[in-house]
Every structure is written in C-alpha cells, then in structure tokens.
C-alpha cells in the first residue's frame, strides 16, 4: 500500500508572496482514517501547518474545508469518502480571505449571521415558567437549529461568492427561518421586512450546493423557499 498523496494549500503571509500547493506523503497504515487525522499526521511532519479544529466529532464546525473539490468537515469525512486514485487535495473554504494555510477569515460569514438577528424576540412578558410550545410547533425547528456555523454551505454558494456583503447566504438564511418558524418569536413582520430587498434572500438561485455539502444534512434551500412564501404571504 503506497502512501497517501496529499496536496495542500499553503500560505504564510509573513514569508510567502503568493499561495502555493505543497505535496505531502502520509502513511495511514492502510486505515480509513478521517481527513482531520491526516492533517494531524501532516502537522507532525511540519508543525507550521495551520488549520482549525476543536471537537473532532462534527459538532463544533471548526474544520470546514474543501476536500477534493467538495466542502465538508475534515473530522467526520473518512478518506474512503473523498480520496480518488490515492490522492487528496485540500484547500481552504472557497470565497473567503485566507489568513494562513487552511485558516480563512470568517468575518463576512459571521457578519451575515449577525445581520439576521439570530436570537429570539418576544415582546410579551416572560412567564414564571417556560413558554409553552407544542411538540408539533417544536418539530418545525428540526432541521434548522442544528446548524453548526461551519460555513461549508455559504462558501459553496456561487451567489455568496459574488455578493458576500449583500446576500445573507444559506447558513444565515437557515437561521433566519429558524426564528421565523419559532412559535415563540413575535418579530415575524420585522424580520421579513429586513429581507425583502433583491439581495438578502432573493439572490438565491436554487443552485442547491448548500444542500449537497451540508455536513449535518440540513436543507437551506428549502428554508429559503419557506422564507419566500412567508414574504409573499405578508406582502400580498
């Protein structure tokens, strides 16, 4: 069994004038490890290699990256899912500025998340216990609240690439709908009026890259469709 050939994007702003691809040979001992394990093996060869990681079980969203052309989380992507012809190409998430190696500046992504006011708004006085919500009402939040903000979806979205300052992007819109769909939230009209411009929601062209790459199996395109329906219902 020959070593896995990994080609990885390198850029250190202090020493490199331009980014380049570096080749690594990694001995996985024939095991089907996760891509994150491969990154750790590479870091043992070169401690200067920079990438983010935390939970290593697919819930913190730190290690979103582009693996053989597809965005995903390195920690829950086994080699058998991505490696072709014993080759693995690793690049940072596309469309965001690179800080160093695999580490991107997530500022724009977070800004779009903050813009949709991702918190419950309820203008009625809080009761002494919890606000009641039926299991059916709560079911509407399934498939929405689980987002881990890994940015795999938004950085796979051409509309987000072209207009990252104006288009909220699939991740932000999924969260926007998470609050629109919450029976406890009373700011529906206010939220909708912030979204009716031609960019925030309507720049979604239904390409569905977001759905194809979401490591949590969520469906932002469907949520965007629901927001459109709500906007239409509100305005007509």
């Amino acid at each position, binding site marked *: 069994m020959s070593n896995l050939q990994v080609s990885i994007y390198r850029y250190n702003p202090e020493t490199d004038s331009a980014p380049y691809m570096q080749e690594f040979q990694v001995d996985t001992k024939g095991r089907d490890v996760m891509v994150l394990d491969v990154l750790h093996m590479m870091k043992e060869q070169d401690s200067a290699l*920079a990438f983010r990681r935390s939970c290593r*079980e697919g819930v*913190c969203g730190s290690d979103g990256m582009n693996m053989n052309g597809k965005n995903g989380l390195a920690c829950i992507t086994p080699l058998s899912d991505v490696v072709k012809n014993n080759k693995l190409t690793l690049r940072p998430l596309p469309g965001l500025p690179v800080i160093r190696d695999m580490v991107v500046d997530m500022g724009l992504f977070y800004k779009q998340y*903050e813009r949709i006011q991702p*918190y419950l708004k309820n203008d009625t006085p809080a009761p002494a216990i919890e606000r009641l919500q039926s299991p059916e009402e709560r079911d509407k939040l399934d498939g929405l609240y689980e987002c881990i903000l890994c940015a795999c979806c938004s950085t796979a979205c051409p509309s987000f690439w072209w207009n990252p300052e104006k288009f909220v992007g699939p991740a932000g819109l999924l969260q926007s709908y998470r609050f629109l769909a919450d029976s406890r939230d009373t700011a529906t009209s206010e939220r909708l009026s912030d979204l009716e411009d031609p960019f925030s929601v309507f720049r979604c062209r239904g390409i569905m890259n977001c759905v194809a790459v979401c490591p949590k199996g969520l469906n932002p395109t469907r949520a965007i469709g629901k927001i459109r329906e709500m906007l239409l219902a509100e305005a007509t």
Partner: protein
Amino acid sequence: MSNLRSLTFDAIIIGGGGSGLRAALELAKSGKKTAVLSKVFPTRSHTVSAQGGITCAIASDDPNDDWRWHMYDTVKGGDYIADQDAAEYMCSEGPKAVFELEHMGLPFSRLDNGRIYQRPFGGQSKNFGEGGQAARTCAAADRTGHALLHTLYQNNLKNDTVFLNEWYAVDLVKNASGDVVGCIAMCIETGEVVHVKSKATVLATGGAGRIYASTTNALINTGDGIGMAMRAGFPMQDMEMWQFHPTGIYGAGTLVTEGCRGEGGYLINKDGERFMERYAPNAKDLAGRDVVARSMVMEILEGRGCGDKGDHVFLKLDHLGEEVLGKRLPGIVELSKTFAHVDPAKDPIPVVPTCHYMMGGIPTNIHGQAITMDESGNDHIVNGLFACGEAACVSVHGANRLGGNSLLDLVVFGRAAGMFIEGALNEGIEYLDASESDVESAMQRITRWNESEGGESIPELKAELQEIMQSSFGVFREEKNMLDGVDKLAQLRERIANAYLPDKSNAFNTARVEALELDNLMEVAEATAIAALKRNESRGAHSRYDYPDRDDVNWLKHSLYFPLTKELKKRDVNFKPKTVDTFEPKVRTY
C-alpha cells in the same frame, strides 16, 4: 516591556463556553465594560458537545418534583464531598436559570402539554432515593449542549457583548499584593501579545480531558485556566477526581450520551448479558457514572468483554426502534454510523469508559470567587480572580458528577459570578496596578517558547504525557503504578521546560498555541497525579485497588493541591446548607 499594548476592561472572561457566555451575558446586560476572550470562536467551545441534557427540578415530567430530591442525588452522587451549600444553591436556583434559557430561545424538546421534555438520567431519584427513578434531565433531543451554547452566544450578540475571538490567554498578571489584575493574552491571528487589565478576571476555560490519551473531550480541552492559576501559585481542589464516562465509542473516544440508557438502552457483555443488573440491582444501567464505568472495567478484566481483544462492551439500543432513535437520539445515530460504523437501530455500539470530566478545579465559593487556604486552614478570597464551569470546583460534583449536572453548573454559576461581579463593580473595586516586573513575570513563559532554540518536539511530549496519565491514573489506581507515574511526570516537566518551538511566525501560529497548551496539560497532570497518589481511599471516581473502601474518618474532605510546594492539604467539606437538613454520609448503593 511597557511597549506592550494594553486593553482595559471592568471584567474579562476567559473562555467562551457555557459558563463564560452566561457570565458575560449578565455583565453585558449591566452595561459594564466586559469582554469574552476565547481561543476559539465561542460556538466551537466544548459545551457544544454536551448531548443528553441539563438536569433540573422544573417539575415538568413529574409535577411533584422537588429540587431537594435533586440536591440529595447530587450530594450522594458526589460521594458526600460535594459542598452542600453549593449543591443547595445550584439545585434551588436551577429552575430559574433553565427557564431563562428557554426564554432566550433554547429549542428544548417538548411534552404534549407544551412543557420542556425531561428524560431519566443516571443517579436520579424521587423522594430522597425512596421513590424510584426520576426523569429530571431537560433535553433538546441529544444536542442540548449545542442548543444551549448557540442560544447563549446569540443572546450575547443581542446584548452587544465584546468578543475577543481566537485570542489565547497566556498567564495571569498579579500585582504586588497578590491580587489578580488581568492577564497576558495573544491574538492568534496576528500574534500580537497584549496586557489585558481588568478588575475581575473570570477563568471559564473548561476542562482538561486532553491529559488522557483516550477522552471524550475536544482537542481544545487543555486546562488553560487551571494552568494559569497554578503558575500564579493558587491551589487546586479535588484534582484526583476525574470522571470516566461509561460510553465513549470504542477506538474513537467520542461520547455517546447517558440519555441512551435514559431512553431505555442498556449495556451487554460478550454473552449478551445485561451485566449492570448484577452490580446495581435497582438503578441498573442508570447508576452513577463511576459505578457503571467500574462495572464495565470489571467485566472486561474478568474476560467478558466484547470484540477480538475482549476490551470493550456493547451498548444495545436496537430495541428502542427507529422512531425513538430518530426523534430522541438523532445525533447518536449519526455519531455511531460515522465513528463506529454501526447503525444503532440494528446493531449495538461498542463502548468503553473514557475520560470525560474534571470534577476538581479552582476552588470557589458560590459567587465564583477563587479561594485559597492559609497555613492554619482558613479560607481566603483571592482578589480579582473568579472561576466558573468545569474549571471551577465550587464544589457541586464532589467525587463524581451526575449526568446533566454540568450544564446546570455552567449556567447557574456563570450567572452567579456575573451577578456578583456586577455588584462588586458597582460598589467599586480598587487594586494596585501591576508593575512592569509583575507583567514581565507573566510574560516569562511565552518569552521562553519564543526564544527556544532546540529540544524535544511538542506533539511527542504531549503524547507521552497522555500515555502516562492513561496507564497510571485511569479508572482503577494503585500506589506502585501511581508512584511510577508521578516520577515520570516529574521528568517530563523538565523535558517540557526545554522543549522546542520550531515555528516562531506570528500569523495564526497554531504550533505556538499548542506549546502553551502543553504547559497547562503538564500542570493539570501533575496536580491530578499527586492528589490521586495521596488520597488513600476509594471515593466516587477515585478507585484504588490498595484502598478499596471509602474512609470517612480521614478523607471526608476536599484535597487541596498547592503547586509551588507540591503539597496536598485537606479542606473541609461544607455540610451546612441554609434551608434544608444536612445529608449525612451513607453507604452509597444504586
């Protein structure tokens, strides 16, 4: 030296997990100049991995539930070295804190009547152990930690909290009188090192499970706050008490929630026997975690383990059916498929006890104020230093934490610390400024790494440390092995002091962060080792072959480890709750 840029805050909170964000929220609402400094973006903190839920007597599943029953379970679960005033505070304030979370938007699962869904967890009882199994753990499917952390982060955004994300706190700065007046911190993105001045410094840095080779903990759980406090000379409490979670996925170490057993799953050995019926005839698989973990190791040692090597057992869930699994345990289904290549609806999950939680930490009172002890055994408050969450030892968990109590600990004591600091700031706090030499001594460590010119490699030393801890300070301990471990750790400390950081660059230098983390792992490991060696009894999670029994005559005490002298002292446990009668120590059975 004074060319360091300085940032000034009323309060700086180090750590962006559950307790840090809860404290920050309280302070942000009060309008104090507060910042959260976190080495990862807050929602990447380890709270996000908590699965099963937050245990609290909100009387939803059982309208007659009582926080005193929860307190009894907590004290018993902690094998009677939980401070009863603290457990009383946590259990009685808990419902308020949980309802607040719900009002902030936390998407709890629901009962048909619209109230929060509660599931049974280990060590829970009704009526002070007399009324059978309780269902007291409030859950958002099996993603409660994720839901909680995101909700807290969102509400901090709502309240305009200042975040220093991807900043790493290096060491505490003390003034001439020994008060903590801030810290040295590094912006990871640029490598800039600054002096953060603050009247209140809150260590909410979480646990340090990465001292073990096999752990459910995130890679970032390196005990940074513990290391900082120890280098500043402050003592650590009950560091020998490490919880091994019964169900870490065999091989990968990822957590499988106790909620699986709460929903009706159970453990089986290679003969398919539900062996917990033998070890805990009443609570069975829902006995305390320490009890279940030990029983599993006994099964394995006695040759009834599963697999080719007989080194794990199975968690059986298939009888629950796909619907329950899909609705109540969707995350577990995902994790098992990814990390164990098993569909729990069809086959059992291979599991093994795995390091999970540090019951010990920085001793604090219920306001989060750090405590130290003088020569004559009197407690003293450390001015300016606070701790909450896993980094703190209030102590509500004693020698063994109950499942679902960590999330409650985070929000109750994060909130309490925030409220207390707000009050203290309103009354006015004046400490001496740090002098240049004070700042310089806090800079020593990072300077040392930056000037290192050769020596051993950081990842290799880390792996060695983890192996020592795994083999000498695991589920079962005994003197000879531990002496050997303590010895090896002492040598390792010397080697780490001379280790080499090859990459000295500034921009997002993760190698430097890992070097600084290694120092902290070393501090935690040594405190754990020495405390474990000296506690000559078995209590809660600390089980010794050579001292198999609990020794209430000598050890109904907290241990207090003093890092500068490496001494282990004893500190009294609080047996004086304010509104209920003391729970006297009893033999602990499930």
